[in-house]
């Protein structure tokens, strides 16, 4: 967790709160320092949620968010807003921020939200990695294997696939085994489910 706020009491209170729920939090006194630390690599870049106060000096929350986006920051950013800043926060959410929290807030609710965000982000991150892996595996298939895979995903039997492609059913079985091995799946059903969940298609 990264907490970025220019008010010492608030910042430390927030860290104290998060830690009371077992979350590891780092406090930053300003957006500029946080961004600088990310660039230097001194800040942890593993899956972590950023809490940004929207009203800060000299670099405001929004400006910090812009810089994070420019750096390709993949993790959720939550804004903390005071009275009258809600419009800005909504705009930030539309611009890609995860959520915003209006002060004064229910503290444990905040932690819940942070945890939910963290969990969602982690899941998303895992999906991304799986998808990347599957994509790479799909790319490694030969053209004949891809043809067979398409027929398989359309639900045809090996015999029909053999007729369609003009090869023997035995050859089809051989390809199918190779495909399952390369894509690290056990069945046609599991393959179809994973492709559908990750939104991938068999190209070419």
């Amino acid at each position, binding site marked *: 967790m990264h907490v970025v706020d220019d*008010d010492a*009491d*608030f910042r*430390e*209170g*927030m860290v*104290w*709160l*998060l*830690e*009371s*729920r077992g979350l590891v939090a780092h406090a930053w006194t300003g957006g500029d320092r946080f961004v600088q630390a990310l660039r230097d690599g001194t800040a942890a870049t593993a899956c972590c949620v950023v809490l940004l106060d929207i*009203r800060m000096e000299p670099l405001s929350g929004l400006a910090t968010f812009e810089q994070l986006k420019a750096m390709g920051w993949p993790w959720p950013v939550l804004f903390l807003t*005071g*009275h*009258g800043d809600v419009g800005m926060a909504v705009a930030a959410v539309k611009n890609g921020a995860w959520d915003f929290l209006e*002060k*004064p*807030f229910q*503290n*444990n609710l905040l932690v819940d939200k942070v945890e939910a965000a963290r969990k969602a982000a982690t899941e998303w991150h895992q999906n991304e990695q799986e998808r990347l892996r599957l994509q790479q595996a799909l790319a490694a298939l030969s053209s004949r294997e891809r043809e067979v895979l398409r027929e398989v995903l359309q639900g045809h039997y090996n015999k029909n696939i053999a007729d369609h492609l003009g090869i023997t059913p035995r050859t089809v079985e051989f390809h199918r085994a190779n495909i399952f091995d390369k894509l690290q799946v056990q069945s046609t059903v599991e393959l179809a489910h994973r492709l559908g969940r990750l939104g991938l298609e068999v190209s070419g």
Partner: protein
Amino acid sequence: MPTATPPDVDTLDLDTRHASALTRRALAWLVTLLLLVATSAVLMVLFLRAEEVHEADRRRTADTQWLDQTMRFHLRRLEADLGVLALQAQGSRQPPDAAALGGPWWQSPGRVAFHGWIPAATAAGDALPARTHTPDGVDDLVAMLETTRGLQRAAYAGPLPTAEPGQPPWLWLAVPRFEQGLFVGDYVAAVAIDRLLADTLPDWFLQDHRVALADDGAMPSEDTFVAPINLPGAQLRLQVQSLGDQAPLAPRAFFAVALVCLAGMLLALARLWRDTARRQRTEARLQTQLALRNAMERSVPLGLRAWDRDGRLIQVNQAFGRMVGWPPQELLRRAADGSGPLPHWPAEQGDEFECMRQSASDPDAQQVGREWQLQHRDGHRIEVLAHGAPLLLASGEVAGWIGSVLDITERRRTERLAARQQAQLEASGRLVAVGEVASTLAHELNQPLGALSSFATGLLNRLRDQRIGYDEIVPVVERIERMAEKSGRVIQRVNAFARRQEMSPQPMALAPFVSRVASDADLPEGVQLVLDLPPGDGPRVPADAMLLEHALRNLIVNAGQWAPLGTATSGLPAPCVRVELVTDAGQVGLRVSDTGPGVPADQAATVFDAFSSHRPGGMGMGLAICRSIAEAHHGRIELSRSPDLLGAQFTLWLPLTP
């Protein structure tokens, strides 16, 4: 002494063109008449002159004839005497006694200068003494004697000069004497001409005339004429000169008087002419002035009216007619009929003429004018600024009144609009300011409160999990305490800022105050304001005028906004807001009631809370502020339902002795 006839203040209908044409025609007639009179005068002079000459001629002829006859009469008498003397002389040698004859010729000696008998056959020159004649005259004498003999009648000769120089000439006369047809002689007499004239002519004639023997060379003149007296054998030419002016005086006098009159008339005419010219110039200037005034009157958008002393409308200009939608003639006709108030004057404002006269008599109102309402023909009200002034004659007498009205409806509307916009602007400015204050306050409080809350929750979480030791708790709680103090300081700062303006109560009279505030309050169109205030100053209470005005205005404006919403159901004729002063034991109340729907029972408890407006767009501060102000004056504000207007009734009670 009051003047019986009121001054004429009716409109002057000055048709100067017609009037001057009339004057010119009259003058032309007058000039013609005068020319006629002058011509007649000249003709009269000529006629008189001719008449006088004719009269003189006539008198001259009469005088001549009279002279002739008189002379002849006397000389015939002398002839007769000479005939007697001739008879006597024929008979004796002695000269006849002429004196014995008697008669005028012989009464005094010398009248007959010479007489004597000349017997026939005696030469005249021998018979007559030499002194009696000049040698040149002998022939005439001889001719005379021969004539007597030839014609057997008396004959005359002369006048012939005598031998003695310096003597007047003599007129000779011879009377023949025949004896049985035979001539025996002549009796000759001579009369000095001057004696002849002096003796024969009567005195009355000689007083006026001088008669002398005419000179041959004498020129006949105006007053001189020659009267010839024909005698047998001689012609006596007498020159008669009139003595003194004998022209008739009376006609001349009459004529002179007529001339004087004529001259006087001419003079009068000349003056009249000059006067008329001056009057025409004045009329022309008056006409120009009138045209100027008319043009000015037409060009101004001011409605003008005039009344006579009795309050009768006598003049209305076009601008006024346009203002109220009635033709001026129609208004004047109605005013003349006297059939009730005029249609443009709303009856509730009292008598129009009295209002105008009061405003004209009041110097303040003359300066700034009075504001009234007029009723247009189509029913809508017109707000006007009216001025009045008495119509003073040169004598200082008031002949009538003039009133002018200026339509300020548009101005009022603009002013109201501007005031409303200003109020809205101020309200939104206040709203922005309040929002800014609230935002800043929220941020200022959010930081410490949020941190405090975080620490507290974090602490609570650890305590629940029993993951914290006593040593760790103390610094966190200390920190929580510090942050609570910090929040408290923020609140203290806000309070200090809010209390910076202290109220300053001053004793003030409520009735004029309420009247002024209520009249100034901005009510929506169509909402009527009813004031029910005690006469005079009413009760006096110590109050901060600015704050109390703010509270009262808030109540009135609030009532005005609700008033139109209730009349549809309550059955009252028009939405209205009533403001009254009520007194109770030891306190006085400013009561504002309206015809609105009233406050529902479930909202009555919260109506004075801040940010609790039940009106769309309301901020919900007005009544809260009213309550704060009432409480600051040690009073209170009370909400009930108006028994007659059926809407809400707010009463701001103030203690009479704080």
